């Protein structure tokens, strides 16, 4: 019976072909540093899942944001755990993604034919930092407010465009409810959209080109 169902699905979905291209393939023997990529992906998934749970209770307005976080921490069942994972996952993800970048660099894995994999990877690193920057404001506490104040001010010192960048980031000259709304929007829509599309290309290329090998002395 199970085989029948499998065959029926395979005929329509091409499961065998997927298994053959994605899972059942030979790759060079590599070391533990090569797990950092999948670890980044895993952490991104954790951030997505916990983040989605958090949006169920979080309210992106200066009046309610802080209280909604208090509510998540104190009253929602396992809210503290979900937020704790999201909070620490953010830091951990920056570390792991950065190490993943270093591994790629030191093994020369960004060279032919993997230039585009590297390109999408650097965007993923920048997006990860962007997620950290936008997410930091959302709890609307003293720490997040003043860090964002200074962070956006620094963006405002860029020559010629500085004032424009500052106003785009803050949604006006001051850090206000508008800023919180657009940081929230960037954090849950804009940057994740970028991340998902970049991950798709990144993953496609990894499967197409295979993971790089550890370069020998004459390579």
């Amino acid at each position, binding site marked *: 019976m199970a085989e029948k169902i499998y065959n029926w699905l395979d005929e329509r979905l091409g499961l065998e072909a997927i298994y053959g291209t994605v*899972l*059942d*393939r*030979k*790759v*060079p*023997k590599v070391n*533990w540093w*090569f*797990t950092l990529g*999948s*670890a980044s992906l*895993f952490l991104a998934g*954790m951030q997505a899942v916990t983040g989605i749970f958090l949006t169920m209770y979080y309210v992106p307005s200066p009046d309610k944001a*802080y209280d909604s976080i*208090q509510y998540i921490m*104190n009253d929602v069942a396992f809210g*503290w*755990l979900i937020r*704790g*994972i999201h*909070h*620490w996952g953010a*830091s*951990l993800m920056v*570390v*792991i993604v950065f190490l993943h970048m*270093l591994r790629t*660099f*030191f*093994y*020369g894995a*960004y*060279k*032919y*034919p*993997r*230039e585009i994999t590297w390109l999408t990877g*650097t965007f993923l690193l920048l997006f990860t*930092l962007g997620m*950290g*920057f936008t997410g*930091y404001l959302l709890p609307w*506490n*003293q720490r997040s*407010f*003043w*860090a964002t*104040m*200074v*962070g956006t001010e*620094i963006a405002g*010192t*860029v020559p010629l465009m*500085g004032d424009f960048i500052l106003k785009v980031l803050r949604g006006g000259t001051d850090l206000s409810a508008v800023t919180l709304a657009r940081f929230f929007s960037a954090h849950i829509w804009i940057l994740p959209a970028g991340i998902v599309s970049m991950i798709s290309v990144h993953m496609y290329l990894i499967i197409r080109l295979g*993971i790089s*090998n550890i370069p*020998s*002395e004459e*390579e």
Partner: protein
Amino acid sequence: MNEEFKSKYHEKYAAAKQKGVKFWPDIIYKDLIVSFALFLLLIGLAAFVGIAQEPKADPNDANYIPRPEWYFLFLFEALKFVPGQIEWVGTALIPGIAILVLILLPFIDKNPYRNWKKRKVGVSMMSLVVVGIVGLTVRAVVTTPEQEEVSLAGSIAEQVIQGQDLYSIYCAECHQPDGEGGEVAGVEGLEGVILKPINSQDEMWTRTDETLFNIVDLGQQDLGMPPYGLGYGGELQRSEIEAVVAFMRYTWDERAEIPEEAIIGIPGLAEGEVPSYEVHISAVAKRYCVSCHRPDKENNEYLMQTYEEMLTTGDNADKNVVAGDLENYIIVTLHRESIFDTNGDEIIGPMPPSKEIKAEYIDMFERWVLAGMPETADEAAALSEPAAGEAAPEAEATPEP
């Protein structure tokens, strides 16, 4: 990269693959182990380290030391080395170039070799950058001053208790200890002004928390009430104003149910019991005296915020509180009599200026003075009569601690 190198690469890679392993399960199982370890680490961090509590954002509190997320610290630290006039070099030019080089690295680095031994320039440059980032991060962590601890009122009960203290310091002077209002006495500029009660149903049912917050924050200057918010020249942070509002709401609004642990009354005294500063006197003083008897108020320099202050400060320090003497200034003025100097001029009026406190509290002060002003509950207990019926030993003045 020329065609020769390309085909050589493909050869090598095909050979590596030949000698290699299966993606499933050899690679996947390692990935799963690492991911699972990270998962456990995250749960551990969430459960055992948690997230530091921070007070709510206060746009008016410019004294707050801004600290970015730790992975941006190195950027902030690096800015300290850039002179102000060319700040944009540190904020835009260098990071911009660094990001651009990173993104375009495969197109900039034309060296076809992969092994680090044949890429010494690139590898050492990246190593320097990493060392720099780590070094700057460490330096930033070490040199950032500690943020002053701010009291965090978490639960409603904590807020109400904090609010009660703040209310008795900042508000009770005019609005009276229970918000009953009446004629203001002893407040510069508002002498004789009649205040309506702020604890009534009319007030509580028609003013939302937000309205109350704004009244405290901005004041009602046409009516004589100054602003109390930090942003408008007052002394209170937003969280503190919120605490005052919580105290008012939970104490005076019959629709709000006060959490039990937030009810702090002034404890009563049994017959023969000696009150202590710690338990009784400080509670009465906090509620009725401290709003004027604190620094920068007109009070003959007499402060009543601590045990020490109560016994030793003031222009009349030697007469305010005297062990065993019911003619000392505190007791006399509590009985609504004035103190006159040798010329017959009044130097202290009845206390508190607006209204007599309960006889029970005056009695508390009298017993305390007679027993020699014990500070702690233990000292007071030692002085108390063991049980009714036994001969009361003469109250003795305890030596000053």
